[in-house]
C-alpha cells in the first residue's frame, strides 16, 4: 500500500481514495453483461474448451522443432540446424566473422560457443560501445514453437541490449529450449520470471507497416535475426542413454 | 398450420406486392396466413433514435396485438424481426410483466427466409434465368444469425444463380434514420455497395429487408441502372407461378 510521505504523496493517496471510492460506487450501477459461451467452444466435450492437445501428452521434440522452424522462417528468420557441437560453433564463427560482437556472458552460451565470442563486448560494457556492435549473440530461455518466438529473460550476463542494439541478432538454441506455446513457457518458467525485471518474446526481426502498410524490416531493433539449432544436449550428457526419443 | 403475418410498415406502405408474395409463398408451404388486426410499426425508428419511452409506447401496443394471437409470427424483414426478437426484451428490462410478454412473442417470431428454411425450403423454377446478387442485411445476418437460408432458397430455384460481389457483407448504408441524419456517409456506403453490385454482372438484386431495398433501388435508379430489385419473397413467388 502506498504510504503517505509528505505533501505530494498525501495528494496522491487522496486521489487513490477518490478513485477507488468512485470505482466501488460505480459497481452498484455498472452494466457488465454475463458471460457468453459459444456452441463450438467445447465441441469435443473434453471439459476445457481451449485444450488443443490432450493434457499429459507432450508432442515429440522433432515436431516441435519443425513447427518452430516453419513459424520462424515465415517471419524471415534465418534458421540453421546443425548436427553437432562443432558444427554449431562453426556456424557461429561464420556468422560473426569480421563483425564487432556483443554477447551474453560466454559461459551462458551452449555447445561451447562461448569460445567463439571470447573477447566480445558484453552487457556490462558501456552502452555507447554496445551501440556500435554489429552483431549480438545470445542463447535463449525458451523457444516457442507455436509462434516461432524466442523468450529472453533479462539477468546478469543476459542483458536485453544484446538482442536489441546491434542490427543483427543470433541466438543459439537447443531442442531442450522448445515449448509448444507461450502458456507452457509462462508456467514452466514462472519462478525465473519472478526473479527478473524483464522478459521479452522476440518474434522475428523488428518491423513496421506504418507507412501505407508497406512492410519495412529493421526499424529500432535488429533487422536480421538468425537462429542456430544444435543437437539435443540430453543425449550428450547421458552417456548410457538407451533410446533417444528424438 | 396457422401463421401470423407481420407485414412491417415499409412493406405495408411502400411495397405491398412483397407482402402478397410472402403470403403466397407461405400458403404454398401449407400455411394459413392470418393478418392480425391493428399492426402498425415495430417502433424501431424511435428506439434507434434513442427515444425509448416512445419506442416502449409503440412496443406495448404491438405486443398487445400479437399476444392475442397464436402460432409463429412471420416477418419479411431482418431488422423488424431483430427488433421483436432482441430489442423489445431490452426495452422492457425494468418491467417484469412487459418483459415476459416480450419474451413470449420473441420466441414465436421468424424472419421470412428463416421460416421457409425451417419448413424445409421450397423448390421452384424461374422462367427467365436470373443472375441474383444477394444483399445480406445486417440485422438479419449479424443480429439473427441468418446467413445461409436466403442463399439456399435462391439455389433451390432452378434458373437462378447467386452471383457473389465484393465486400458483399458490408452494410448498404440504410440504417433507418441514419440515411437521413447522416446522408453523405449513407450515400458513400451505398455507392460502394452499388459499384460492387454493378461490377458483378448480376441482373437482379435481392434482399430480405425492404429498407435496404428501397435505399439501394433508389440509388440504382439515380445511376440509370436496369438491375431488377426484389424482395426474396417476390423472387420465390415469381418462380412458383
Amino acid at each position, binding site marked *: 500500500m502506498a504510504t503517505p510521505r509528505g505533501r505530494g504523496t498525501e495528494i496522491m493517496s487522496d*486521489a487513490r481514495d477518490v478513485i477507488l471510492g468512485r470505482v466501488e460506487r*460505480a459497481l452498484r450501477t455498472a452494466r457488465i453483461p454475463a458471460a457468453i459461451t459459444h456452441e463450438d467452444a467445447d465441441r469435443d466435450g473434453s471439459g476445457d474448451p481451449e485444450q488443443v492437445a490432450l493434457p499429459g501428452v507432450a508432442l515429440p521434440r522433432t515436431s516441435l522443432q519443425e513447427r518452430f522452424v516453419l513459424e520462424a522462417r515465415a517471419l524471415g528468420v534465418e534458421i540453421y540446424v546443425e548436427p553437432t557441437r562443432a558444427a554449431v560453433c562453426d556456424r557461429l564463427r561464420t556468422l560473426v566473422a569480421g563483425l564487432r560482437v556483443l554477447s551474453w556472458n560466454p559461459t551462458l552460451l551452449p555447445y561451447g560457443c562461448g569460445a567463439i565470442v571470447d573477447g566480445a563486448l558484453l552487457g556490462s560494457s558501456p552502452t555507447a560501445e554496445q551501440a556500435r556492435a554489429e552483431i549480438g549473440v545470445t542463447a535463449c530461455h525458451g523457444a516457442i514453437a507455436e509462434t516461432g518466438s524466442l523468450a529472453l529473460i533479462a539477468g546478469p550476463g543476459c542483458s536485453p541490449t544484446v538482442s536489441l542494439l546491434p542490427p543483427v541478432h543470433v541466438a543459439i538454441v537447443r531442442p531442450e529450449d522448445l515449448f509448444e506455446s*507461450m502458456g507452457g513457457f509462462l508456467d514452466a518458467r514462472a519462478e525465473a520470471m519472478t526473479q527478473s525485471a524483464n522478459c521479452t518474446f522476440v518474434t522475428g526481426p523488428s518491423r513496421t507497416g506504418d507507412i501505407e502498410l508497406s512492410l519495412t524490416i529493421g526499424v529500432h531493433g535488429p533487422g536480421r535475426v538468425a537462429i542456430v539449432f544444435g543437437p539435443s544436449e540430453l543425449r550428450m550428457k547421458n552417456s548410457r542413454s538407451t533410446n533417444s526419443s528424438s | 398450420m396457422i401463421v401470423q403475418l407481420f407485414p412491417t410498415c415499409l412493406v405495408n406502405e411502400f411495397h405491398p406486392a412483397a407482402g402478397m408474395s410472402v403470403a403466397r409463398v407461405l400458403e404454398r408451404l401449407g400455411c394459413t396466413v392470418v393478418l392480425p388486426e391493428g399492426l402498425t410499426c415495430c417502433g424501431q425508428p424511435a428506439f434507434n433514435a434513442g427515444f425509448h419511452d416512445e419506442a416502449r409506447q409503440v412496443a406495448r401496443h404491438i405486443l398487445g396485438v400479437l399476444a392475442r394471437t397464436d402460432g409463429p409470427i412471420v416477418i419479411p424483414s431482418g431488422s423488424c424481426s431483430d427488433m421483436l426478437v432482441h430489442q423489445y426484451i431490452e426495452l422492457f428490462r425494468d418491467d417484469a410483466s412487459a418483459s415476459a410478454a416480450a419474451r413470449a412473442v420473441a420466441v414465436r417470431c421468424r424472419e421470412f427466409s428463416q421460416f421457409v428454411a425451417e419448413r424445409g425450403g421450397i423448390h421452384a423454377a424461374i422462367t427467365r434465368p436470373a443472375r441474383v446478387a444477394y444483399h445480406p442485411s445486417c440485422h438479419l445476418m449479424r443480429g439473427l444469425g441468418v446467413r445461409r437460408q436466403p442463399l439456399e432458397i435462391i439455389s433451390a430455384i432452378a434458373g437462378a444463380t447467386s452471383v457473389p460481389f465484393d465486400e458483399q457483407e458490408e452494410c448498404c448504408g440504410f440504417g433507418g434514420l441514419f440515411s437521413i441524419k447522416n446522408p453523405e456517409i449513407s450515400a458513400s456506403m451505398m455507392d460502394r455497395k452499388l459499384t460492387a453490385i454493378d461490377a458483378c454482372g448480376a441482373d437482379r438484386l435481392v434482399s430480405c429487408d425492404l429498407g435496404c431495398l428501397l435505399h439501394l433501388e433508389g440509388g440504382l435508379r439515380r445511376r440509370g441502372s436496369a438491375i431488377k430489385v426484389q424482395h426474396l419473397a417476390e423472387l420465390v413467388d415469381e418462380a412458383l407461378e
Partner: protein
Amino acid sequence: MSGGFAERARDALGNRQLHIALDRTTAQLGLRRATGLASLERSDAVRDRARAAKMQVLRTLPDSLRQFEARLVENGARVHWADTTADANRIIVDIAMTAGVRRVAKSKSMVSEETHLNGAFERAGIAVVETDLGEYIVQLADDRPSHIIAPIIHMTREQVGRVMEQRLHVPYSDDTQTLARYARERLRDEFLRADMGLTGANFGVVENGTICLVTNEGNGRMVTTLPRVHVALMGIEKLVPTMADLDRLLKLLARSATGQKLTAYTTLVRGPRRSRDECGPEEMHVVLLDNGRSRILAGETAEILGCIRCGACLNACPVYRSVGGHAYGDVYPGPVGAIVTPGIRGLAPFAELPSASSLCGACREVCPVRLDIPRMLLALRREAVERTPQPAALRLGLKVFARVASRPRVYRVAAAFVRRMLRGRARGGWIRRAPGMASGWTRFRDLKAPAAETFESAWRRRAAAARKS
C-alpha cells in the same frame, strides 16, 4: 448532419486521397485479421475466456487495482494515482523534474494523447520525442493520429517524404525503406540519450504486477531498457487477472490488429532493474489514470472498458472506412471511440458520435472480446435524448409517431395522408425531390412513391372476396 463531426465527416468524404488510403488499408487489415484468427485453434473458446477475464476484472476492479498496486510495489515500482488528465501530467512531470530528466523518449501511448502529455513536458522545458514511427511522423507533421494501431493510415508515402524532408532536412524520398531508415537513424540517438522512457501498457497483470508491452519496432524495448527512469501510464481498466489470461489476450491482440500471431516484441516488465542487472531503469513508475473511466463503469457502457485497443472494429466499420479517424474529433476513433470519447470527455460535446452508425454490428462481430458495441451505442443515444438538446422537429416528430403508431385507426388515417402527399410528387412511381426531412434522402437517391393501397387493405379485400366466393 450538423456539428463538429458532421463537418469533419463531410470534409473527409470529399478527400479523394483519404478515401483511397482508407479503403485499401482497412481492407488489408481486415483480411489479415481474418487470416490471423483462422490460424488460432479454438478461437471461439479463447475469445469467450478472454472476454470473461476482462469482465471479471471490471466486476472486481477495486480489489484488482489494490492487488495490482501491491504487487507493483513489491516488484520495486512506485505507483501513482491520477484522477484527471492534468493530474497525470503533473505527476509525470514531477517525476521527471525530481529525477533531473531533460529528455524523454516515448513509446506509443494513446493514454498520453488523452492527457496531452507532450505539451506538459514541453511547457516544463523537457524535450520529448515520439519513437513509434507513425507517432514520430505525426509529431513531425504536427498532425494527429487517425487510427488506433496505424496512426498515419491517412497519409501517403509522398506526404511522409515531404514531412521528413522539411522537418529533418533530409533528401526527399517516397521509398518506405528509406523513410524508415531516416527515422531509425534519428531516433537511435534519442534512445541512447533519453533520461526517461514513457510507455503505455497494453495489459497489467493483477496477480504479479507485470506490465505487458506489445510492439513491432523495438522502441518499446529501447525505452524500457536504456533510460534510467521508466514511466508507464495506463488507464485503470487495462488489467487482466492472471498470466494465463494474459496469454489468451496475447493470442488475440496481434491477430486482431494486424494478423500477426505475435508482434515482433512482447515485453513483460516487472519492476526496475534488479541489483545485479547490467542495464534497465533504476526507477520505475506506474501512473494509474481514471479520467472518466470510473464514470463509464457506473453505467450502461461499462463493457467498453474491456477493449484491448486492437483496432479491428475500425477496420470493419463502414462509417470509419468512409470518413477516417480525424472525423471522430478525439483520441479514439471508430466504433470504440464513439463510446469511449463521450465517456471520458462528456456526452454533450460528442453526442453526434453514437448516432454516426448504421448499427450494422460488424464491430461486434470482429471484436476479440465480443464487446456489444451496437447495444452501447443505442444506450448512449438514449442518454443523449434524455440529457442533451434534440432538434425540436425530431422530438416532436417521434412523439407524434409514438402516439399514432399505438393507435391503429389514427395510424391508418395519418399514413394515408402521407402516402397521398408523397404520391402527388411522384413521376412514374418515383420521387426525385422529397420535402422536409426526407430531402436528405433524395439528394442521393430516388424515393419510391408509396403504394396507392396498403398491403393490409389489399389483404382484407382479398380475404373478403374469398369469403364471398
